[in-house]
Every structure is written in structure tokens, then in C-alpha cells.
């Protein structure tokens, strides 16, 4: 891990309050993830990649915005790792990095369709209107 | 009678301190006055009195009596006393000044306590007349006049001046040393001050408290009074009253093993303690009631009996304000003394 990676990792851990070494690599988070197929990197990979400092690819990845923030992974993780909080932190970092909101609240209505779950709307606000 | 201005007081203190250590009440950080060694910058407290009485100057809470040093199986005996130095205690109130008389009658009668005697010999007591007695004062009950304090030198304080009057040879000597800093004066101002004090004294809530019911020969009258039970009921058996009392004089002698020898010392003890005068058969006074009774009977009956009617309470009021459960000699006198008359 180079210095930059270390700093990034530290920041994410601080923001999320997550301790990735608690993960015992069971994959239940990914097993339970409803957005799994949409994601390039899956919840368990977030945990291991953050732990190994491999954060740049995560920041670049669209996976960040595929997470529904449904917290199923948080609820079911047997070790209290809370992957969703990690995803959230990386996402926040990405948003901050870009210096602007990704999606304005008023735009949300436009992207809505019948298949979009209500939960997504709520999480969209959580994610984009920070 | 001599006087000096209050402004010159530091110079006076410096002069006294020049060839004898000067101790005087100084406000501590908790606002309570404590006898402290004077040095430049130390300010005399305006407080009425100190929490600890000045008896410790002559009868300290703890003092080494003798030391034994062991080397292998030999024992060397050492007298730990150093040559006593002259010292002056300034600011003693009338009540406390009287307490020295009470202590003297214990320690200076045959066999004389040489530790105490030596300190008394080297100490000069400068009393200051009270200006603001408080509700807990009842010195008058024991015939003490706070406007006429005893001691080697008596001092009266007015708003701007101090008036000095020597009562003994030691006091005379001290005033001689201060001749340059003081001037001869009349006692008019002092008389006015005394008047002021007396007018306050008459307004005190305990002004009418009388000790007449007590004194020599009253042992049988009070010893079995049923009131002792309720009076002592909530006593927590601490030694606060004893240790703040200017006249309590009980002590214990104990040995401390230093590893290289033994230090034999004495320390204050309290008749309120369950371990007081404990002997192989146990405690002579089995209950707190008996211990409680002992303290007050001693002050009001036993001591006067042996000392020409002198009570061993001086009405300083320390125990009134310090007792954790607010039980005190005034309550005892009122309860026992009042009932006994009926």
C-alpha cells in the first residue's frame, strides 16, 4: 500500500467507522445483495479492497451508484462489518472529489419509472443530496 | 499601651519575625484561616478563628518522644528533641488563650511534661480581641471576655490601628522590640472597641447559656441522666470535635518500626474512638454513649473537679460548626443541665 492509498483508506475507515479486518470472508453480504448483478464490485469486494488499499478502482466504479443502501448486508453480516457503510463512505468520497452533487433532487423525478423501487428514491436523496 | 497603624503591620511582623518565628492566621485557598509561618507577603487573616486551634503549637498532633536504633542485636537510644526555638503566635483569640491555661494544668503539673513545657517556655502568645463574634461563640458562658483576651500581649484592632498591651514579662520584652514601630497611647480607643464588642456579645444567640449547673461535684447528678442515650444516639464516633477542640489533651503513645529501629511517638487520641485506651481486656467504655458522656463530663464536671472549678471548655464554638452531625456541648449543656434543674 502506498502512502496515498493508506491515506485514502484511513479516511474511508474514519468516515464509515468500519473495521474491515473483522471480515471473515464469508460472502453473506454479497449473497444477500439485491443489486449484486448490477455491480462491478460486490459488497464483499468493497470490504477486502478497502482493506488492501485498492480504493481507486472503487472510486471509478459505477458500482457505487448501484448500491441501493438497503442495508441487507449490514443486517446479515455475522461479524458486524457493515459493508454498506463502507460503500457509502467511498461514494461520499467520490462525490466530494467531484466537487458537486451527482444528481439534484429535482432531477430525480425525471429518472423515475414504474420499475424503480420506492427505496431507491429515498436512497437517492440520501446519496445525492448530501 | 502602645499603638501602631494597620498599614505598618508588615513591618511589625517583620520585626517580630527577626529573632523568633512568627505564626499567624492566614486565609487558606478554601477561605479558612490556618496558622501559617509568616514571611514577606503573607497576609494576616481577618477571620474570627482558625479551624484547628493553636494548641498544636505546644501540643502537636504528633511528636516523636524517643528513638531506638538497632544495629544487629544492639540498641541505641536517641532523644530526637532539638533545641527549641523562640516563636510567637499572633492572633490568638480570647477563648484559645484560655485553653492554654486548661492545658497547662494538665501538662505542667508534676510530673511536668518536658516536651510541652519547653514549647510553652519558648512561645510568646499575642492575643487579639474579637471584633466580630459569631453565632457559635459562647466564651462568656465560661467567664471569658473576648474584649479582654489574655496572653503575653493583648492586641485590639480598630479600623485603622492596632493597640498593644503587654501582660507578662515575655510580652514586655516583645513590645520593647517593637518600640520603634509603635507609639505610646491612651486606652480610650480600646475602651470604645471593648464597648462595641460587648454590645455584640449580648446579642449572640448563646449569650444566656450558663454553665452553673455543672462543675465540681456534679458527677452523681449527671452520670446516669437518661438523656445521654438520645444525645449520643447519632454520634458517628469520629474525632472531629476532639481534634478541633483547643482543650482536648488526650494522646496515645505508639511505636513505629522503621525497619532500622523504632520511633516512639505520641499522637492525639480521641475519647470518642472505640479504640481509645483499649487494653488487653478491651475498652473501658463499651458503648458510644459512655464515650460520648466521658467527653462532656470531662469538660464540664471531672476537669473542674480537679482544677478548682475551671471548665475545660472555652466556648470557641469549633465543635458547633464542625461536628458532622451537629451534636455538641451546647446541646448537651442545654439538655442535661436544663433537665437536671427540674
Amino acid at each position: 500500500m502506498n502512502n496515498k492509498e493508506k491515506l485514502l483508506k484511513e479516511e474511508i475507515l474514519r468516515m464509515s467507522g468500519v473495521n474491515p479486518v473483522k471480515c471473515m470472508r464469508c460472502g453473506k453480504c454479497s449473497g444477500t445483495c439485491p443489486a449484486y448483478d448490477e455491480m462491478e464490485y460486490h459488497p464483499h469486494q468493497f470490504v477486502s479492497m478497502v482493506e488492501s488499499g485498492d480504493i481507486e478502482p472503487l472510486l471509478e466504479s459505477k458500482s457505487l451508484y448501484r448500491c441501493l443502501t438497503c442495508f441487507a448486508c449490514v443486517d446479515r453480516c455475522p461479524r458486524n462489518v457493515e459493508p454498506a457503510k463502507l460503500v457509502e463512505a467511498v461514494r461520499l468520497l467520490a462525490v466530494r472529489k467531484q466537487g458537486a452533487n451527482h444528481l439534484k433532487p429535482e432531477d430525480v423525478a425525471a429518472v423515475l419509472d414504474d420499475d424503480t423501487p420506492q427505496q431507491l428514491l429515498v436512497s437517492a436523496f440520501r446519496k445525492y443530496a448530501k | 499601651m502602645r499603638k501602631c497603624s494597620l498599614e505598618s503591620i508588615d513591618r511589625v511582623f517583620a520585626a517580630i519575625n527577626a529573632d523568633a518565628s512568627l505564626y499567624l492566621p492566614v486565609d487558606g485557598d478554601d477561605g479558612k484561616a490556618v496558622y501559617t509561618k509568616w514571611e514577606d507577603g503573607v497576609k494576616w487573616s481577618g477571620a474570627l478563628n482558625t479551624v484547628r486551634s493553636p494548641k498544636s503549637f505546644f501540643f502537636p498532633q504528633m511528636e516523636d518522644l524517643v528513638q531506638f536504633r538497632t544495629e544487629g542485636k544492639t540498641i541505641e537510644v536517641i532523644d530526637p528533641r532539638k533545641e527549641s526555638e523562640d516563636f510567637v503566635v499572633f492572633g490568638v483569640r480570647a477563648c484559645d488563650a484560655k485553653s492554654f491555661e486548661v492545658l497547662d494544668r494538665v501538662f505542667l503539673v508534676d510530673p511536668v511534661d518536658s516536651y510541652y513545657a519547653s514549647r510553652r517556655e519558648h512561645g510568646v502568645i499575642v492575643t487579639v480581641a474579637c471584633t466580630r463574634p459569631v453565632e457559635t461563640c459562647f466564651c462568656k458562658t465560661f467567664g471569658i471576655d473576648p474584649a479582654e483576651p489574655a496572653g503575653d500581649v493583648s492586641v485590639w484592632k480598630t479600623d485603622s490601628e492596632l493597640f498593644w498591651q503587654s501582660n507578662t514579662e515575655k510580652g514586655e520584652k516583645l513590645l520593647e522590640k517593637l518600640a520603634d514601630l509603635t507609639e505610646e497611647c491612651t486606652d480610650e480607643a480600646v475602651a470604645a472597641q471593648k464597648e462595641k464588642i460587648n454590645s455584640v456579645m449580648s446579642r449572640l444567640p448563646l449569650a444566656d447559656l450558663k454553665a452553673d449547673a455543672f462543675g465540681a461535684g456534679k458527677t452523681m447528678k449527671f452520670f446516669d441522666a437518661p438523656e445521654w442515650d438520645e444525645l449520643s444516639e447519632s454520634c458517628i464516633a469520629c474525632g472531629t470535635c476532639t481534634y478541633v477542640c483547643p482543650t482536648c489533651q488526650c494522646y496515645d503513645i505508639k511505636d513505629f518500626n522503621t525497619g532500622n529501629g523504632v520511633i516512639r511517638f505520641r499522637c492525639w487520641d480521641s475519647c470518642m474512638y472505640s479504640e481509645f485506651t483499649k487494653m488487653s481486656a478491651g475498652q473501658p467504655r463499651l458503648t458510644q454513649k459512655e464515650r460520648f458522656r466521658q467527653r462532656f463530663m470531662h469538660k464540664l464536671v471531672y476537669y473542674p473537679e480537679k482544677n478548682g472549678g475551671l471548665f475545660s471548655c472555652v466556648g470557641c464554638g469549633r465543635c458547633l460548626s464542625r461536628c458532622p452531625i451537629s451534636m455538641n456541648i451546647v446541646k448537651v449543656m442545654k439538655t442535661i443541665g436544663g433537665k437536671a434543674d427540674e
Partner: protein
Amino acid sequence: MQRIGVFVCWCGSNIAATVDVKAVAEALKSEPGVVYSADYQYMCSQAGQDLIKEAVKEHNLTGIVVCSCSPRMHEATFRKTAAAAGLNPYMVEIANIREQCSWVHKDIPSGTEKAIILGKAAVAKVNLNTPLTPGESPVTKRALVIGGGIAGIQTALDIADAGFPVDIVEKNPTIGGKMAQLDKTFPTLDCAACILTPKMVDVAQNDKIRIFSYSEVSEIKGFVGNFDVTIRKKARYVKEDVCTGCGLCVEKCPQKKIPNEFNLGMDNRSAIYIPFAQAVPKVATIDAEACTMLKKGKCGLCSKVCTAGAIDYKQQDELISEKYGAIVVATGFNPISMEKFDEYAYSQSKDVITSLEFERLTNAAGPTAGKLLRPSDLKHPHTIVFVQCVGSRCASCAEKGKEYCSKICCMYTAKHAMLTRDKYPDTDVYVFYIDVRTPGKNFDEFYRRAVEEYGVHYIKGMVGKVTPEGDKLKVRASDLLNNKQLNIDADLVVLAAAIEPDKSARPLATMLTASMDTNDFFTEAHPKLRPVESPTAGVFLSGACQGPKDIPETVSQAGAAASKVIGLLAKDKLTGNPCVASSDELMCNGCSSCERVCPYGAISYIDKEFRMPDRTVAIRRVASVNPAVCQGCGACTVACPSGAMDLRGFASGQIMAEVDAICK
């Protein structure tokens, strides 16, 4: 005043090279109480010991200080020497001037100075030593085994085999425990009943063993060698000694809709029942909750059909008191409840089952007579998903799961998967695992066989969710190695539920004053060296009550516990350690602080009448230490605020005297 002899050992040059032994002997001569001092090349030699013995006689010594090697080396030697010379052995103290002085310090002046100081400390201590005599207590030569599973059975058999009487207390109507419910056992795949039931019969037939079935321990008093135990024999409304176990009553009982615990509720039994065919004792039991006669006073059919006249509706719980020398805890385990694992739909679908339920489903004596059929529709399942570590290794929620590894699941799941594939080659079997743990003889080979020979799909990853949909169970899981999510339509999902100690263990531990860990497993006296003993003397641990265990391990621990019990019962008397705590009752406040820190439950309280310092009489609660149970750690002495509790041989006064001597 003591008369102390100081004996300084040279230990050849081991001590003498860095410590001026003559100077040490000389310096210690002038210590208080010392009347004799000598040095010698080898104090531990016969000649050295003789020197001590002679000095004791010649100088009338009352105490001995030996400045030599570590007391861990020769304290026992010199205590024997003292005893041979007529002194109490506890009047000996050792100053360790070899391991802790001559061997670690380089120059003679500092080595000598330190040796003198250590000697002075020992002298200071001996000055305060008092003769100590170890207490003795008799041993009741009978053992109690609590729990009649394979652990309890094996322990009881082994103890009985050595000739000591044993009682087994089992809370269920029959002994056998969990093993009786199993189908096959790994890694050999022999049938559980085939190997267990002969042992059950052995127990029943052994005249040294009594079985108290349908019974519970209700009170335990006393201590090692001398336990007084009260056993509550629950009313089973059938006279045990009369019932022949013919089963007619069971057949005729009209109340047949009671969930059958033995088959984990997957079928029903009658109100009067015998749990299974090979039950021991093979005696019927009436379920009072279900019996119409007992509830409403009507029916009485079983009584009518019983030719032996064994039914007794008026039977009461019976309290039996017995004395024991040793107690073995073998309370075993249970799978944890799956109710809280919503994601696996255990409560929603009958086709999500636990592994123990799976055992019953595949057992010839089970609800499906051994045919693997789905509980919901009794169809043959074609796709079976096994989920490992359900509730094990779970740190997130204490109410749900357990933080520890349950240890046995990897192996039984491999067994289940293998047996399924063996019997029904048309099934697809998936095993989702986090790690596969197979440390054990032939264990890994067994697991590999499941994969290689039987084609079980082992997938690294966990099942995230099971959703019942129509007659299928949608299983969503991750395959971590292929980094993809799997969606499997399963017919049956089997959960490897974590195991936990039986609920009866906690109250039992309280009665025994035996310690438990936070998971309610009994703690062992030492995790490595005394694994089958509880810290409470006379209490031994067998089987899963101490931690998750498989059958071979349980049986070996059961045997080990038995051998410890035999070792104890073989003694006629127990000699205690005299260095035990004792309380000065006059100073004791009865505050219970000491009792709470005592790891052995050696402290109890008595109400005693005291003449108080004021000569009144008061009844006060005071601590009393049982010297047969106390091991002398001293934890209580510091917990005691009044200093009433002290430790013989290491009294506060003695330790402070050592401190003083060292510091002076």
C-alpha cells in the same frame, strides 16, 4: 520468639561463585530470631540435610531458613527434612539465592548483598510463620454423573468399571442424549444406534450404576469428597419397577397429537410414550400436560390396558438425597433456535430444516422411516442446499448467534451431503461454507471424498437469502471464488445450526459454584493441563458442556473425566493444602466480597452469635472458608476491606515483613 537456623548452600560453585556464602551466613546471624547459621556445599545432599537435622536438635530451632536454589526445586525436600527433625514442615522458608541471585548477577559484592537481603526477608517471614497442618476430609466413594448422553454414559461406565458406584441423573425419560437421535456417525459412517444402544444396555445392566431418568438435580451442598445432592425424580405416573415397556398403553392412548420431541416435532406421539424403541429405561412416561386423565380426570385407558398395573396417576415428584464424592457434569448441548434467522426462512417454510432434523429425516426410525422426503409435501427433494455456520462465528448479534465455531458442523454436513448423494444420486447437493474445518483423524479425507467421489458442490460463500416461492426455495448466495451470485431453486435447505450448552447448565453451575464462560460453557481448571476438571474441586467435565465436541472427542474426554474421578474416589481421605484462607470472624462484615471472587466456591456464610465490643449480643453474618475446597490463591484477602480474610502461609503480616526486610 522463634529460634531460627539459617543454612546457606553453596550449590558447589553455582552459588558460591557469585555470592560470598560465608558473609551471607555471618550477616544473617545477627537478624532477629536467628540463633544459628551455617553454610555447606550442598544443603540438599544427605549430609546437608543431616546438618540441618542436627542443628534443629542441638539449638532447639523452631524455624529454618535455607538460602539455596528455588523453592520450586527443593522446598519440598527441606520441608521433609524439617519434619524428620520434628519440626512442622511449614516452619521452613527458602531464600532463592541461586536462580534469582547468583545465576543472574555478575559481581560478588552485589550478589552477596542481594543474597543477604533475600535471606533477611526469609528470616523476617519465618519469624511470623506458624505451624500449619493440612486438613483431612473423608471421601464418599460414589460418583454422580449429571446428564445421560454419550458423555455421561461413557463416564459412568468407566467409573463403574473401576468398581465405584455411579448414579446418572437424566432429565429426559431415557438416557442416550443427542447421539440417540443421530443416523450415521462420521467419519466411519457407522450407525449411531448400533454403537450407542449396546452402551445404554450396558449401563442398565451394570449393578454399580443407577439411572435416575426423568430426574433433575435440585440442590447441591458440600464439597469435594462430600457432596450432598438432592435429586428430584419427576412424577412419570408409571411405576418404573413394574412397567415392562410392552408399549400397549402407548398404542391404546387416545391422545396421539402431541409433537414428538425425539423427532423434533416432525411427527406426533401419544400422551403416554416411550421416546424410542431402545430407550433405557424402557419405561413409559405420561406427559402430564397432554394426558386427559391427569388434566380432566377422564380416560384412564392406559391403566385399564396395563397388565402389569404400572400406571399410577397419583404419583408425586420424589426427592432423593444422596452423598457423592465426585460430580461429573455431562449436560451436553442443543442446536440454537433458528427463529431469529429470518433470512433463511426457517419459520416460513417447513422445508428449511436444521441438520438435526435432517438426521431424523434420514433415520430409519425417523418420521419418514428413513426416506429423504421434504416435510412440506413428502416429495423427494432434488436440489438440496446445506448452509454452514448458521449462528456460529457470529459476532454481530448475541441474541441471534454465537461467536464461537461450533466445530462439528463441517463434518456432519459433509456426512449428510455424502449420504444424500450416495442414496439419491439424482439430487444436486450444494454446501455453502465459509471455511471447511476438518482437523481430525480421517476427517479431511472424508470431506474430500464427499467432493471427489460423491460430487457434492462445495461453494465458498454464504447464502444471503432464502425465499419460499411456490414449492421451491429460492436461494441466493454468493460464490466468492467465481465472484458471482448464485440463484438456486432448492427443494430443501438444511441449516447447520450453531450449538449451545443446554439451558440446565447455568443453574447447575450456580449450584456447583463451578465457573462458566460467557457462553455458558463450563470452564476447565486449566485450559491445557486440567481440561476435564472444573476449578471447583471434585467437579469434573465431560462432553459438550465444556465446549463444542464431536463424538470421539466426547468419549475420550468422558474417559479422562472418569479416570480423574476414579483417582479421587480411590483415596480414603483427602489431604488439603494447609495454605488456605481463613477469616477472622470478629472482623468479618459478611459483605460477600470474598465469596464473589473465590473461583472455587470455598466461602460460605453462617449466621453466628457474637458478643459485640459493647458486650451486647448480636447475630452477624460471617464468612467461613472450607479448607478442603480452598486452593489458597488469596483473591479473597484483597477483596476483603476489613482485612478479616488472611491466607495461611502467605499472611499479610508475613508478606509485609518481607517487604520491610527487603526495603530496610
